[in-house]
């Protein structure tokens, strides 16, 4: 049997994507689609006093105008559910305003231009209340939750951190801040809804097809079998398309009312408020160590935003519990309940911003100890999980650090800040560790021999750019011993077998393991002489005891070199390397792309990304791509990612771990540490902009 799994083959959906033939939610035309436009609230807290939609209704081409006064009845929202994304999401169901940008009206018209103009003509007057918007001054709205959003305890305590801080040879006690961020996927959230008889099909931009199916069917009070969700191509997710939003619900309702297909797309500006975002955080990190670098205490406390409209406790300190050994430990996550849009998962929720603080604090400790930051990390490598006291399934952080150091030329780094000047540029290097929890979810897969030599795979899994289509073709081809070209992969329809979808980096492993199981069963039957044509097998995967017996994480080490302009403080990334341990790699080409993408997100969180909040109005201020800064081509030089050869037999039958989020974890801290090494500026409030660097240069 030829090895196909892991090979760096081109994406099988590549030709569709480079020719414009890949169909995304807003591309589905069906027959005569009409266009919905959403109008949104201009206050953050209060209620609607009156709505005058008469001018909107008079516009040529307008077919429908809905506000809370005339929108169809929907299932009520519920605060808690096992699958939060499957909860009903009623729209225009109340005069109550819970956040700035909340949808308050829908217009449907025969053209996009007419719909948008009419939506702008809707005149809303409000009864404005006093909202709470300031993370650090939320008073009684500051809460200490029991659990984070994935059900882990929000706090942990071992030994006595205060005592260790008093008696340690050196200590670090610093506060770090991370800003609000938006996913800003290239594809705005979009839905095209089509009714055929009593059946509704919604083409939508969503990561979790199964959850979207439940949410839309429940909200519209439809039997599940009368609803089909289709998401064959999704223009980026990053966590922001875990839920569905008003576009999907309102398109479905309006299509039913008008008896014709309706398309609703959020504007780029609406995305900032209507959809989820990453909450801002304030993090205090305390570290104490002996003279030789042995950590005696690690404490990591966070305060992050949650919303009055819905609760989300980002697990910012969770992985701190497993990264380094230390006898005295404390972690705690608090939230401030604010009258802002609802925060949610954004690429590596938890680690992405938790490590911006922790891994900069480790660097600060290394400086105080006059110790190499890699040596400091190696010194505190734990033998087993430091708080759960269970073995790691695999852990190769040391190898990532050492191999990365060799490849990057770490030994050329001068530990003294500002010591390496090249013309106008102060040049520095930084390092940081990556850790990301590894998860497996229940998944099913179906594989069918469509001829003696061809097979079709079906799952309701999505490919949000991760490479799902391609790795599933590889798994089926290798297991069935047929060419990759002989496999057709069908994803993103809710009528296909249930999967957890794309999120939390669990998609490839969960669905891949289910598909492997299906293909192995099918191959066994083929080998017995059954079939082949029409022969079908179902496969399953689910987390077993190994997820309780072993602490499961993926790891990595980031190395960044930056230049800081000696006069202006401008930071330019010069080169970057990541070395990762993510179990078995299912496609070396697509995995590398994902890791590089994650690393660049890390660079972005260190240097560029920030969604400033207007505390007067409770609204975000950088609501377009001109003002919300993400890297462009000119910002990104050579970025390289390498992976270790590994197979984690405790993770799943494929031996793989997720790679989609690993790349961002710690990447921004490596950049921050490089900025310090370059010029001596220790910036603890992200993003690291020139105004925060200049004081250190003068």
């Amino acid at each position: 049997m030829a090895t196909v799994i892991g090979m760096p083959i081109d994406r099988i959906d590549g030709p569709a994507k480079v020719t414009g033939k890949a169909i995304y939610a807003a591309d589905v035309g069906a027959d005569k689609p009409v266009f919905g436009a959403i109008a949104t609230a201009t206050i953050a807290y209060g209620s609607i006093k009156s709505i005058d939609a008469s001018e909107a209704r008079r516009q040529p081409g307008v077919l429908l105008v809905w506000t809370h006064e005339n929108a169809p009845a929907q299932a009520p929202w519920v605060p808690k559910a096992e699958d939060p994304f499957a909860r009903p999401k009623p729209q225009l169901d109340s005069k109550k305003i819970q956040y700035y940008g909340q949808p308050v009206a829908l217009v449907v018209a025969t053209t996009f231009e007419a719909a948008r103009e009419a939506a702008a003509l809707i005149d809303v007057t409000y009864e404005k209340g006093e909202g709470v918007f300031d993370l650090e001054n939320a008073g009684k709205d500051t809460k200490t939750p029991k659990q984070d959003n994935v059900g882990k305890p929000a706090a942990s305590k071992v030994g006595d951190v205060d005592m260790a801080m008093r008696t340690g040879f050196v200590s670090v006690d610093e506060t770090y801040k991370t800003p609000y961020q938006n996913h800003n996927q290239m594809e705005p959230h979009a839905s095209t809804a089509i009714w055929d008889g009593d059946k509704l099909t919604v083409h939508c931009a969503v990561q979790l097809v199964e959850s979207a199916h439940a949410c839309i069917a429940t909200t519209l009070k439809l039997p599940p079998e009368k609803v089909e969700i289709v998401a064959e191509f999704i223009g980026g997710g990053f966590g922001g398309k875990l839920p569905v939003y008003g576009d999907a619900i309102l398109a479905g309702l309006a299509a039913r009312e008008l008896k014709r297909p309706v398309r609703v797309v959020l504007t780029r500006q609406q995305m900032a408020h209507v959809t989820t975002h990453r909450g801002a955080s304030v993090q205090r990190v305390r570290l104490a160590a002996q003279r030789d670098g042995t950590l005696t205490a690690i404490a990591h406390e966070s305060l992050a935003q949650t919303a009055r409209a819905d609760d989300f406790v980002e697990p910012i300190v969770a992985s701190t519990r497993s990264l380094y050994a230390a006898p005295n430990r404390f972690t705690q996550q608090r939230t401030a309940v604010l009258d802002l849009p609802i925060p949610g998962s954004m690429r590596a929720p938890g680690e992405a911003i938790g490590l911006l603080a922790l891994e900069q604090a480790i660097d600060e400790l290394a400086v105080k100890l006059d110790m190499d930051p890699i040596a400091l990390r190696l010194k505190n490598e734990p033998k087993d999980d430091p708080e759960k006291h269970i073995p790691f399934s695999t852990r190769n952080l040391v190898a990532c650090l050492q191999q990365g150091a060799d490849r990057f030329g770490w030994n050329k780094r001068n530990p003294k800040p500002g010591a390496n000047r090249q013309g106008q540029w102060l040049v520095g290097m930084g390092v940081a560790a990556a850790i990301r929890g590894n998860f497996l979810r229940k998944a099913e897969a179906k594989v069918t021999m469509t001829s003696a030599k061809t097979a079709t795979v079906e799952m309701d899994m999505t490919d949000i750019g991760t490479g799902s289509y391609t790795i599933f073709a590889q798994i089926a081809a290798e297991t069935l011993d047929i060419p990759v070209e002989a496999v057709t992969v069908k994803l993103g329809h809710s009528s296909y077998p249930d999967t957890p979808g794309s999120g939390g980096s669990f998609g490839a492993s969960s669905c891949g393991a289910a598909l492997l199981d299906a293909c192995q069963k099918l191959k066994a039957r083929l080998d017995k002489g059954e079939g082949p044509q029409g022969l079908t097998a179902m496969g399953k995967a689910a987390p077993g005891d190994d997820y309780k017996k072993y602490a499961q994480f993926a790891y990595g080490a980031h190395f960044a070199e930056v230049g800081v302009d000696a006069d202006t403080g401008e930071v330019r990334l010069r080169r970057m390397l990541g070395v990762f341990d993510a179990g078995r790699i299912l496609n070396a080409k697509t995995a590398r792309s994902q890791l590089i993408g994650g690393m660049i997100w890390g660079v972005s969180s260190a240097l560029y990304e920030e969604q400033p909040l207007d505390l007067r109005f409770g609204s975000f201020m950088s609501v377009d791509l001109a003002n919300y800064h993400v890297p462009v081509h000119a910002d990104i030089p050579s970025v390289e990612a390498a992976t270790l050869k590994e197979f984690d037999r405790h993770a799943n039958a494929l031996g793989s771990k997720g790679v989609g989020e690993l790349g961002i974890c710690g990447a921004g801290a490596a950049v921050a540490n490089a900025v310090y090494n370059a010029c001596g500026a220790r910036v603890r409030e992200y993003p690291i902009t020139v105004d925060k660097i200049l004081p250190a240069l003068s």
Partner: protein
Amino acid sequence: MPQKHLLTRRLLGTTAVATAMTGVAARAQIPQPKDVQTAIAPAPSFPGNLDMNLDVNGRQHRLSLDPRTTLLDALRDHLGLTGTKKGCDHGQCGACTVLINGVRMNSCLSLAASREGDKIVTIEGLADGEKLHPMQTSFVHADAFQCGFCTPGQICSAVGMANELKRGVPSAVTIDVAAAPTASVDEVRERMSGNICRCSAYPNIVAAILAATEGVTK
């Protein structure tokens, strides 16, 4: 009550219909079911609509559109050419980049009516039948995308950029503006910075463009 729409609809012109796919086949042949079609809007006529002729991918289209219709929305909603994407509708992301007389342009910033007489090429018009344009092939091999949403714009922009290099147009990073610019790493990064890729495939996009534009200079 909703305004009643009095005027009749006209289905205008001959339009190229790209067919959707369900399932991704590794083999070249893509299944083309009947239940999903790309957008062909009804092209409703309002008082004040403008009649216009658009030359897209070598075909003439006669349209009667609301004068506010952008070239991007004309392509997507009225000609069914949904390969061109709307990422921001404000000229900030580059996802809607098309070629106008060989020059790259954000189609969301151009009114359709102002493009009469121009030769418009979209992502659907780059390949020669089944044979992909070298830039398209290069993007696939270099894995120069992930979600694929910015990709049509990146590719059209890259093709337009190669034309600029051929014409000797300098950029902000061209050291000697009198000399013929070459497709260097720095030139490509500078010239492609109007096309955002949130998946951040930038290193691979640059590699793809360099491979496809090798030897492209004045």
